[in-house]
């Protein structure tokens, strides 16, 4: 049985103090970098810092796949200090970022090679979802079938109406934390959700490209040249991406010991695929940009039940230094693939 609870914003601290007894709390907070303000996920002690008003600049991916992770001492096989048993609560995760973690699951929890680091972090983490009351910069999750106002897999999903925070609690074990707070009126919430939903519909873009892209036709398409023409290969899109998971290994020497680490890496970098012989199967930026997009919209969905490796959060668009827009790429692909299909069926 689900319960609906509603808190005045000032009461949030009270709830979190209770949750803190069981969880280490991670939430979006503002960090200033000179004049620039960013919203990032951090472990919080002072709950007044929490900032739910907009999509965090960086996704919570690092709590499942840290940017750098020590895998262990290589020569002795000395036991790894695995992620601790302390439960983490990530507070206020929007539907796109929830979906992104879902996308990573079949990759790292596959039967052949289960990644115990990812697995352990996932087991020890609870996420409270957060509905979007308005479209965020450059995002289009609704175009990829993600609901910005609901997620069925999280135990708690929240809504922020500006004054109050609504909690839709579906996990009975978590209900105890909400016992002291009043019930919300489901109709009132539904009314608000409807208004938000309608606003989303007004600004929705239609993505009609077939997913997965047909592998060979899309790979051999001429539009990659145009799409990648300005790309600097800086890789920032992959670092902001909530679903990019390419990694590399590096080593760090202590005294006699050598630690093996795993670190985020990027398919946008030329050295990523360069062989020792000098041969590089993805030598040009055009090839690398194609790889990134094809991986997300063709290879990954082909391998994992048709689900693209993109949750349409829009961060790659917001942060690209040369304004490459994923939505434009998807529309370009859509037009080309539809024309190709047309040529085939008429010819």
């Amino acid at each position, binding site marked *: 049985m689900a319960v609906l609870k509603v808190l005045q914003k000032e009461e949030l601290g009270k709830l979190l103090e209770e949750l803190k007894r069981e969880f280490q709390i991670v939430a979006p907070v503002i960090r200033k970098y000179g004049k620039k303000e960013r919203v990032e996920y951090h472990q919080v002690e002072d709950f007044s810092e929490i900032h739910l008003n907009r999509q965090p600049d960086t996704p919570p991916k690092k709590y499942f796949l840290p940017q750098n992770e020590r*895998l*262990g001492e*290589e*020569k002795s*096989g*000395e*036991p*790894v200090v695995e992620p601790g048993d302390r439960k983490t609560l990530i507070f206020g995760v929007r539907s796109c970022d929830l979906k992104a973690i879902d996308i990573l699951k079949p*990759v*790292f929890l*596959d039967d*052949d*090679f289960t*990644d*115990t*680091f990812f697995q352990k972090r996932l087991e020890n983490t609870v996420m409270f979802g957060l509905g979007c009351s308005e479209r965020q910069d450059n995002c289009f999750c609704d175009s990829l079938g993600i609901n910005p106002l609901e997620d069925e897999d999280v135990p708690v999903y929240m809504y922020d109406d500006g004054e109050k925070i609504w909690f839709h609690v579906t996990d009975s074990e978590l209900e105890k934390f909400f016992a002291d707070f009043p019930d919300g009126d489901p109709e009132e919430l539904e009314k608000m959700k409807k208004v938000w939903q309608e606003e989303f519909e007004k600004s929705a873009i239609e993505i009609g490209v077939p997913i997965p892209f047909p*592998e*060979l036709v899309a*790979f*051999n398409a001429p539009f990659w040249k145009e799409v990648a023409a300005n790309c600097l290969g800086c890789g920032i899109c992959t670092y902001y991406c909530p679903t990019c*998971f*390419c*990694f*590399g*290994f590096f*080593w760090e*020497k202590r005294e006699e010991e*050598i630690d*093996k680490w*795993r670190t985020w*890496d990027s*398919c946008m970098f030329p050295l*990523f*695929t*360069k*062989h*020792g*012989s000098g*041969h590089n*199967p*993805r030598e040009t930026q055009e*090839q690398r940009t194609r*790889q990134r997009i*094809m*991986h997300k919209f*063709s*290879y990954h969905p*082909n*391998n994992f039940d048709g689900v693209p490796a993109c949750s349409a959060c829009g961060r790659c668009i917001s942060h690209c230094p040369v304004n490459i827009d994923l939505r434009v790429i998807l529309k370009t692909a859509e037009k080309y693939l539809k024309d190709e299909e047309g040529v085939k069926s008429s010819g």
Partner: protein
Amino acid sequence: MDKYLLPHKGEIVKITQETGSNLNIKTFRVRLIEEEVRKKFKFLPGQFVELTVFGVGEAPFGFASSPTQEEYFDISIKETGLVTEAIHNMEEGDQIGVRGPFGNNFPYEEIKGKNLVFLAGGIGLAPLRSLINFVLDEKNRDQYGRVQMLLAFRSPEDMLYKYDFSNWENSPNTTVKYTIDEECEGWVHCVGYPHELLNEELDLKEPDTVFFTCGPPIMIRFITEELRNSGIDPANIITTLEMKMSCGLGKCGRCNIGRHYVCKDGPVFDLKQMEQMPAEF
């Protein structure tokens, strides 16, 4: 210790200098140190391992010995980069990290009863040697048909596994031919690129024949084209691909060709599969 991401320890028990002065290829015989690990370590022809030089790095290499040799495995390595250089500087008795085995394998079961042709160029012979020695092993030889080999090298100086040749030549129903790029003094075998010699030197028309080829990418391309033009079914032309495989688990993102990860779905592919894959290797 993580099961897949950290290496087991192996000892280099023997180092063989394969080539002359032209190309520096050595073969390293590796024996896993822990008995329990050694017993569990089962590889098949066509698979590969990640070898770690402690404190230097890790790189992928195909098995060059047959799994019928259970105590150790051989890896042939050409000195090309940081890791291979460090391995070349190692000595017998040194320790090396071993992660694997990874990837799929040559279809050694499916090809039972069939005739086999091996077409190798340079160090491309290394992964094929694992299957050749498996097929020609006394215990297995009668399960396979005729075996033909055409082994190509740049020059006599660049030949590897010379110590295997007489065994191969003397194996029942087996012919071995050798070719080098350019005529040289004292050379009594073929001269020329292998794809130009296929029709002349091999019997391609024998039914029920499966072709295995490995070598420089350009050689694989010419040979597969030539075989296809000779009417061979692409499903019977098998090769093994090389990419910069790093994790070996189909995750890190370096070695995919389209949706296929060479480290997990490969490295062994037949030409029928490859014709459906994007040309990005």
